[in-house]
């Protein structure tokens, strides 16, 4: 399975990565290799195995609707690159 350069470009855009032309070529090859490796799993016969999103034998892990206090505002903002008026400050993004 080979990823096209256009697909790599699309993925880079979704991931907000600015890649150079050289990087696009390089990652197209490397990502394709990773996909090919994963694709080896297709050799297994899984006809009788139901698909699952989890390997843990768990279901219905639920919490009661009871409030516990989390972080003070100051602690919440401690790692923010920039903050103002108790809020995180970011570069505006308009869709």
């Amino acid at each position, binding site marked *: 399975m080979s990823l096209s350069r256009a697909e790599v470009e*699309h993925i880079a855009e979704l991931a907000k990565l600015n890649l150079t032309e050289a990087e696009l070529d390089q990652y197209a090859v490397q990502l394709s290799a990773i996909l090919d490796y994963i694709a080896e799993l297709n050799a297994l016969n899984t006809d009788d195995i139901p698909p699952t999103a989890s390997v843990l034998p768990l*279901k219905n*892990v639920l919490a009661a609707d009871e409030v516990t206090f989390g972080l003070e505002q100051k602690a919440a903002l401690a790692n923010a690159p920039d903050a103002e008026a108790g809020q995180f400050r970011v570069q505006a*993004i308009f869709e």
Partner: protein
Amino acid sequence: MATKIQTPAYEAVIGMEVHAELMTESKMFCRCAVVDLTAAQPNTAVCPVCLGMPGVLPVINQQAIEYGIMVGLALNCEIAEFNQFARKNYFYPDLPKGYQISQYEFPLAVNGYVMIDLPDGSTKRIGIRRAHLEEDTGKNTHLSDGTSLVDFNRSGVPLLEIVTEPDIRNAEEAEAYCRKLRAILQYLGVNSGDMSKGVLRVEANISVRPVGSNEFRNRTEVKNLNSIRNMFRATEYEIERQIQVWESGGSVVQETRGWDEQKQKTFSQRSKESAHDYRYFPEPDLPVLEISREWVERVRAHMPELPDTKRERFMNALGLSAYDASVLVADRPIADYFENAVKAGGDAKIIANWMMGELFRLMNKSGLEREQINEISVKPEQLVEVIQLIEKKTINNNAGKKVLEIVYNKGGEVSHIIQSEGLAQQSDEGVLRTAVMQVLDQNPSEVTRWLNGEEKVIKFLMGQVMRAMRGTGDAQAVQRLLEEELNKRK
């Protein structure tokens, strides 16, 4: 829109998407408090989970699931036995994890319907395609300097997305759907219905097509609808806009459009298609959720009465007309107010008349929405007190209206106001007769006209007596005494 195209040749095809925050105590996947965004200090109801810090794990809020089941049942949906959450991946500053936990392939509720009530008294069935649970995002405030401030108090608040089939054909039906859905959510006690605070958000997917065709043409998704009125106007506008685009030989672009309240127009919010590649995949941090039939039945057993059932009861047990019952059940606070008044000992039909007459008039005058009836200073017991005083003839109808208006505007006790304003009904025959005779003496020409057979003059004389008594006279007694005294002058 300058001119409305007078053509019956098009019909609209509308599907609605509603996002309803669920009024749990804590958030969907962490135990931070759900707070009123407009009142709480920013970033004070947050923790590492809803801030998307590394290494944290979400845990599903059981109450949110049960609220979701309640809504699903109220919308006549099948509740899915197998539920799985999914990651919806996109980058935006209000989404700290870089993904939203939602449901995709396996929603909580599917294949339902709701009966909507149209202005002409008819009902229509609107299909519900699905309702699924997810988490709300934080809130961005854009500043003029090119930066945005982000408050994560809302991040992780339980959100139920409810999607209809494209069964809605015009703005009236869209409004009726919103009103009915909002009433159901309010009745279930899972959402306040306050669109201005953003706890209930509506989007309309709109396309138009020639009447008689079954095709689906390009649709637009209209957002920024922060009230039912705006939703109605935006929908009407968008239908007309699309008809004009097709009529002028163009074609409608499939896109997202916002509603500009100032300009009363929708406007394009076109975004790059590639931005909406959400790469959904099953949420690995959450085990699957199985909802047993027993669980569904336990939830069903605790569901409160819904609007349609209440309307039937108002009609059958309390003798209200279909119209009155519909108006009174349309907003839960109105229905509660009405029922409290009936409990306080009043006649249901008379209470309904006074609520829909005087109270609604006073509320309209002061710009209150129906659902804000709890904020008015006239309590249900006071309305009943006024009605009973009228029945006992302590005050007359007009004085009752005056008392209500004073309590509404300034508060206070009904009995005090009647005393201080001198509104008690005057039934003392001696007093009334004196007033009647004075009026007759002061208006000799009207008396002559009456004596000459002009019977309707009595209305004028009646008005004069009532005015002289500042509206407090017992109207029936005044009428009787007027006739007596006039006859004496024959």
